[in-house]
C-alpha cells in the first residue's frame, strides 16, 4: 500500500503546486500593477480578475504551434518538457508536515538542487535548438550565469546542512523547531542573503534576468516558441521559482514549523508566497545589471562571502561539539 500512498501524495502535491503556479502569475501581475499605479487583471472573473490564469491557458492552447524550419526539431520540442519536469520534481522533496515528504531520501537536499539545476538545461536546449541568434546569446548567458551562481548558491545552502549534519530535508526542518536558521547570529543572515541573491540569478529574476533580457534579446531563449510550448516555459519558470522558494522556506525559515493555530502545510505555503513576493518586490523595483557586472558581483563578492560563511558555520559546529 506504500506505493499507493506515495502516488496519492504526489498527485496532491502536484495539483497544489500547479494551482499555485497558475495563481502566482495572477499574483505577480496584481502586485506589479499595484507597484506601478495600475489595477492589473480585473475583468476576467468577478473579484479582481481571478479567472485570468485560466483564460490565459485557454488562449495559449488554441494558439498555433510553430516549429521553425531551421530548428533542431527533436530538441526544440523536448526543451519545454526538460524545463518543466525537473522544476516540478523539486516539490517532491519539500516536507510539508513532520516527516512527510513525497520523497524522503537521505540526500533529498542535494537531489533537489540537482533537479533545480537540471531545469536550466531545458533553457539551454531551447536557446540552442531554436537556431535564433537572440536565443543563442541568451542560452550562452544562461550557461555563464548558471556556472557562476551555482557556486555561492550551493555554498550558502550548505550552511544549514553543516549545522544540522544531514542532507535530509525533513531532518533539517526538525532541527529548526526552536529557531529557524535565518535567526542564527551572523551565519544565518549572511547565508540567507547570499542564497537569496544567487537564487535571483539562478531563477533569472530581475535584476539578474540577463537570460531573458527582453530589451536586448527580444524574448531571449523562448523567442521562437508559441502556444502551449511557450506556456510550458512560463509554467516551468514559475514552478522553478516556487520550488526554490519552497527550499528557502524549508531550509532557512523553518519550513512547516510555526504557531499551532495554522496547520504546518499552510505555514510552509505562506512562507513560500512571502519569499515569492519579496522576489517580485525586487524584480519590479530595480534596473537590470549587465552580464559582466553580474559575473563580477558573483566572483568578487558573493563567492568569497559564501566561502567564509561556510567556514564560520563549520567552526561553530566544531566549537559547539558536533553537528545537531
Amino acid at each position, binding site marked *: 500500500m506504500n506505493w499507493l500512498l506515495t502516488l496519492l501524495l504526489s498527485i496532491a502535491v502536484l495539483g497544489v503546486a500547479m494551482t499555485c503556479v497558475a495563481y502566482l502569475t495572477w499574483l505577480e501581475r496584481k502586485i506589479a500593477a499595484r507597484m506601478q*499605479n495600475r489595477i492589473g487583471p480585473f475583468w476576467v472573473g468577478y473579484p479582481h480578475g481571478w479567472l485570468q490564469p485560466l483564460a490565459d491557458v485557454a488562449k495559449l492552447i488554441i494558439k498555433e504551434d510553430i516549429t521553425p524550419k531551421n530548428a533542431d526539431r527533436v530538441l526544440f520540442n523536448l526543451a519545454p518538457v526538460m524545463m518543466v519536469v525537473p522544476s516540478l520534481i523539486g516539490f517532491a522533496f519539500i516536507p510539508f508536515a513532520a516527516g512527510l515528504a513525497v520523497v524522503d531520501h537521505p540526500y533529498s537536499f542535494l537531489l533537489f538542487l540537482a533537479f533545480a539545476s537540471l531545469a536550466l538545461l531545458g533553457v539551454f536546449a531551447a536557446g540552442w535548438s531554436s537556431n535564433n541568434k537572440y536565443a543563442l546569446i541568451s542560452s550562452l548567458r544562461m550557461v555563464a550565469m548558471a556556472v557562476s551562481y551555482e557556486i555561492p548558491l550551493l555554498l550558502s545552502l550548505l550552511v544549514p546542512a553543516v549545522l544540522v549534519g544531514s542532507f535530509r530535508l525533513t531532518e533539517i526542518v526538525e532541527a529548526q523547531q526552536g529557531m529557524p536558521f535565518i535567526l542564527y547570529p551572523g551565519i544565518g543572515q549572511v547565508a540567507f542573503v547570499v542564497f537569496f541573491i544567487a537564487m535571483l540569478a539562478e531563477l533569472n529574476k530581475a535584476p539578474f*534576468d540577463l537570460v531573458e*533580457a527582453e530589451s*536586448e534579446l527580444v524574448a531571449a531563449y523562448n523567442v521562437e516558441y508559441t502556444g502551449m510550448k511557450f506556456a510550458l516555459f512560463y509554467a516551468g519558470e514559475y514552478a522553478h521559482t516556487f520550488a526554490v522558494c519552497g527550499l528557502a522556506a524549508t531550509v532557512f525559515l523553518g519550513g512547516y514549523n510555526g504557531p499551532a493555530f495554522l496547520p504546518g502545510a499552510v505555514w510552509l505555503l505562506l512562507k513560500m508566497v512571502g519569499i515569492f513576493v519579496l522576489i517580485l518586490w525586487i524584480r519590479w523595483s*530595480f*534596473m537590470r*545589471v549587465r552580464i559582466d557586472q553580474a559575473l563580477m558581483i558573483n566572483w568578487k563578492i558573493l563567492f568569497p562571502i559564501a566561502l567564509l560563511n561556510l567556514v564560520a558555520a563549520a567552526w561553530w559546529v566544531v566549537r559547539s561539539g558536533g553537528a545537531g
Partner: protein
Amino acid sequence: MTEEIRVVDRELGELALNMGPQHPSTHGVLHLKVHLRGETVVKAIPGIGYLHRGVEKLSENLAYEQLAPIFERNDYLGPTANSLGYVVAVERLGGFEVPRRGAWLRTLVAELQRIASHLVWLGTLGLDLGGALGGGTTLYMYCFREREKILDYMEELTGTRFHTNFNLIGGARYDITPELAAKAVDLANQMEACLGEMRNMTSATAMFRGRVEGIGVIPRDLALSVGVTGPVLRASGVKFDVRKDAPYDAYPDLQFDIPTRTEGDALARFEVRMDEIAESAKLVRQLVEGLPDGPIFTRKPIKNPKGLKVKPNEVYAAVESPRGELGFYIVADGTFKPYRLKINAPSFCNLQVIPHIAPGLLLADVIATLGSLDPVLGDVDR
C-alpha cells in the same frame, strides 16, 4: 564610415545581428546592424528609413497655412516644437509679426511639451535598462503618470491632448484663462516635485548608475565633428542651446540656465535632461507670471489657404526641440506653397554618433546608449 563594408569574421566567431526594425528597444523602427564578438560590439550601423513618409516632398504641394499640423507628426513626442520651428521659419520668411502674448503662449506650450517629451524619454530609458518585465516598467508607469497631467492640461487648453496644432503663422491659436494660467504654475510645481521621485528610482540606485556611468562616451570633439545637438551635445560640454544662442519667441525676455555636463556619457545625458525638466518648470512659472496682455495673433487663420503668399526668399530658422536644434530651411517662390522645404532633424543628427561610439561596448550598453540619445524615428526619417 571607414569600415562601411565589413564582412563578419566567422573565424573569430563573430555574429551579425540585425536588431530591429522590429525590436522592443530600438525606439521605433530603427534597424541596427550589429557585428558581435561574444557580446562585444565590433561594429554597429544604424539603418533608417523605415518610417519615411516624404513629409518634405509633401510640403511642396501644400499651402503654408496647411503645413504646421503635418510637421507635428514628425517628432511625435514633442509635437509643438515641430510646428513652432515651422511657423518661426515662415514668419521670418514672410516678415509676419507675432504679438508678444502669442509668442509667450507658444513658448509656454513648448516648454510644457519639453517636460512631457523628457518624461517619455526617461520612461523608455527605464524600459531599455530595466526591461518590460522588471523595474523599468515601474519607472515607465510613473513617468507616464506625470506626463498624463501635461496631456490633460493640453486637452483643457487646446481641445487636443497631443498634436495640439497650437502654433499659427503669426501667433498662437488659443488664449489662456486665469484659471488655466494658475493650473500651469501648479503643473510646473508638480513636475519639479516628481523629479525627486524619479531620481530615487534611477540615479539614486547603484544598478542604474552602473548601467549608465561611463557608457557611450561622446568626447567634445567627436560631438562637434559629428554634429550632435541638444542635450546630447550639452552633455559633452558644449554650451549650445538655440533658446540662448539664437533666441526666438519669448526666450530673449526669460531668465534660465542651460544645464551642461562635461563627461559625455549616458549618465551625463541623463543629468542634463533631468536638469532641463527643472529649468522648463522654472520657465513655465516665469511665463505665466510675466504673460503680457494683448492679442494672441496678428492674422486669423484664413479659410482659403491659398490666400497666404510669400514673396521669393529663403530662410533657415531653428528652434530648440526637446531633442536639439530643429531647423527648417524654406525656399519661397512667390506662390502660396513652399518651393522647397528641408528639415534639419535633431534625432537624425544624434543617431549618426552610434557607429563611432558603439564599437567596444557590450550589447546591453548599446541599448543604454541608444536610450540616452533619445532618437524619435518619426523625426529621423520624416
